[in-house]
């Protein structure tokens, strides 16, 4: 474990991503301290450009502080990204592992079920689910998880199919390991690095989906989010560029950071590459 941490610390782009990500997380944690009060409150004249009236990033069409919106939106974006990905991983890994390990008819059945979800375009399905379930942070998390677990399931199944035939798994079976122990101790750890990488990239995708939903007005109406800010600002991009650019940069940096960390993890978790 310490060896993995140490080689991650030596991974330049992974560390860059981690630093940005930590700054984003710090911003999310510090939001109530930096901008106490409600980000929806009008605090200045509408369309105040950046760095005037004590506002770093200016105000929007209703005089709300953009910086406060971004800081509070960080909490929403990260939370939705992480929680929906965890749910997707949970479903995907369980379905994929069962399908790959058991194989046969049950395995096939589980895969046909997975394909059912994959045949519907992901974003349309997410819109549909949120629209039917009425937009709230819970329904958004559910919708994103529902559209992102199939690819995790397929990946996990593929890894399991290849790994379960390997001799070390058979050797462990001969040692008397139970099926659960084979999955948890022997197959899963060796399948983990692609799953972790996919998971970290899925967080980035989830943030993008959430932004897109909010952009279309399907976000949680009580929560300030980056996508909502861009959506609200899109008609005024030529007169008040700062209203859409800064939330956009926030999305870009966060997604980039998560991708860098994901790739860094990919390199580090592969024991052969990391120790060279």
């Amino acid at each position, binding site marked *: 474990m310490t060896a993995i941490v140490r080689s991650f610390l030596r991974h330049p782009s992974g560390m860059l991503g981690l630093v940005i990500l930590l700054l984003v997380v710090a911003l999310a944690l510090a939001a109530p301290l930096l901008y106490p009060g409600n980000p929806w409150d009008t605090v200045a004249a509408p369309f105040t450009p950046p760095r005037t009236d004590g506002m770093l990033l200016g105000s929007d069409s209703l005089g709300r502080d953009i910086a406060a919106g971004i800081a509070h939106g960080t909490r929403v974006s990260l939370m939705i990204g992480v929680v929906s990905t965890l749910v997707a991983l949970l479903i995907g890994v369980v379905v994929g592992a069962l399908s790959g390990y058991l194989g046969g008819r049950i395995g096939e059945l589980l895969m046909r079920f997975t394909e059912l979800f994959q045949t519907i375009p992901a974003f349309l399905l997410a819109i549909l689910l949120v629209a039917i379930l009425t937009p709230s942070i819970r329904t958004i998390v559910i919708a994103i998880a529902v559209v992102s677990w199939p690819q995790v399931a397929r990946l996990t199944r593929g890894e399991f199919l290849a790994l379960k035939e390997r001799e070390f798994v058979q*050797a462990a079976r001969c040692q*008397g390991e139970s099926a659960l122990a084979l999955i948890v101790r022997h197959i899963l750890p060796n399948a983990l690095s692609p799953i972790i990488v996919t998971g970290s990239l899925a967080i980035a995708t989830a943030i993008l989906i959430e932004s897109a939903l909010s952009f279309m007005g399907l976000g949680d109406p009580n929560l300030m989010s980056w996508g909502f800010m861009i959506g609200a600002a899109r008609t005024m991009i030529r007169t008040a560029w700062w209203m859409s650019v800064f939330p956009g940069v926030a999305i870009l940096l966060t997604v980039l950071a998560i991708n860098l960390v994901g790739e860094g993890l990919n390199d580090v978790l592969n024991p052969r590459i990391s120790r060279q």
Partner: protein
Amino acid sequence: MTVKTPLLSIQNLSVVLPSSGDRAYAVDRLSLDIGENEIVCLVGESGSGKSMTAHAVLGLLPPRVSIDRMSRIEMMGTDLTRLDPQAMRQWRGERISMVFQEPMSALNPLQRVGVQVAEALQLHNDARVSRTEIDERVVAIIDAVGLPSPRQIVRSYPFQLSGGQRQRVMIAMALLNNPRLLLADEPTTALDVTTQRQILDLIQSLQAQRQMGVLFITHDFGVVADIADRVVVMQHGIVVEQGTRDEVLRHPQHAYTRALIEAVPGRKARAIARGGVAAQPLLKIEGLNKTFVTRSGLFTPPRTVVAADSIDLSITEGETVSVVGESGSGKSTLGRMVMRLIEPDSGTILFAGKPVGHSVAEVREYRRQVQIIFQDPFASLNPRQKVGEAIARGPIIFGTPRAEALKIAAALLDRVGLSAAAVDRFPHEFSGGQRQRISIARALALKPRLLIADEAVSALDVSVQAQVLALLAELKTEFGLTMMFITHDLRVAAEISNSVVVMQKGRIVERGAPAKLFSGPQHDYTRQLLGAMPGLDFFEHRIAA
């Protein structure tokens, strides 16, 4: 051998390793000559620098590895070390060709064999060769390497060919442009004994026909005895001995050469302890059948492979029985059926007089007494599990407290010749031979009564193989084991077993004590296997003794 200017002359070749390597030079001031019409064997263990030497000749060294400036590699009046990459390409595949060890990975799986062979021709002929001429020459060369129905082979994909056939294709590809020099890097190590014999014969006859020079890399003195004109022995990048085959084999000067020759298995039968003669066999197999059926499509008839055809076999307590046969003979399937990893179609397996039940608990209890060691030391250990944990898991599962199980693991590691400190390390830190020792320790941790070794030494260098075999023989007496030893190599079987069973196409064709089998084989197939043993002529008098 005619004495004239050599075809290839390597002088003072030093291959410099990156500073992070465990030694400064992979090859240290190596000098050797290869004449026209001569087979030179370069012998050494893995890591001795023999492959690096061949790669240096072709200018195919890995990144960050370089040739020292003092080195010269001369062929037909040109110093190959001074050639730029463009000029080197003209030499590669035209005047010098190479055959690699792994025929499975050296061919593109998505291209038909004929296309891949033809590529070698197209690359080296500036003048446009007509389509039909290319086809003809490809078919001719495929025919020349002894492949049946060449026109059909040309249209096949690599996965449709066996390992031996692929290696023949590789040789065809290498010889298509009539090279003067062939570099063969362990071309038979991945093959079983009978196929190895065919490939060795092929290389030898093609070499004689074409009067080529051949640099043949191997770790097996049995192979050397069969094909070499001259021998160069390497250790840690340094040439320790060279001379004609007879000089080196009959009067080895260097201790390392002697050790390598000693390591060739089957020269001497070990004192094989045969435990107390038990009244009933420990393992008794009766009428075991297994047929594999693969359905490839809706309209193609399913392909069936008979892996076991009414097999009867009994192993007495304390005995070592070898199951010998080539790949596809069903010997591994037999081992796996005994291990209950594959369920037989019909037949009974009795262990200590009782059939083994089908419930999870019964199979688990049975497997506690029967353990297996697999062939591939790199695939049989979980790369993410510490070595100590891997060994201790067995006892832990059966109720030994963790701390105690780890102590057992440490003691076993010590016993198999690794330090107890290995407990906290991961498998990738160990060499192939060391990993196989770990696998042995893992199998012994459960104190089994029957140990199945499925080609347990086949992937190892001959010298490492000898050490592991010696270890197994010791452990057998120490732990009172009964062993079922699955191998393709009769030499190995002769060395460690009380009784040998020869399998062909899922059937047992002959069985008996090794000495009897060697002196008077009854079945054609046994004779064929015996004839395939490398170094037979040279080592024969020692085997018979």
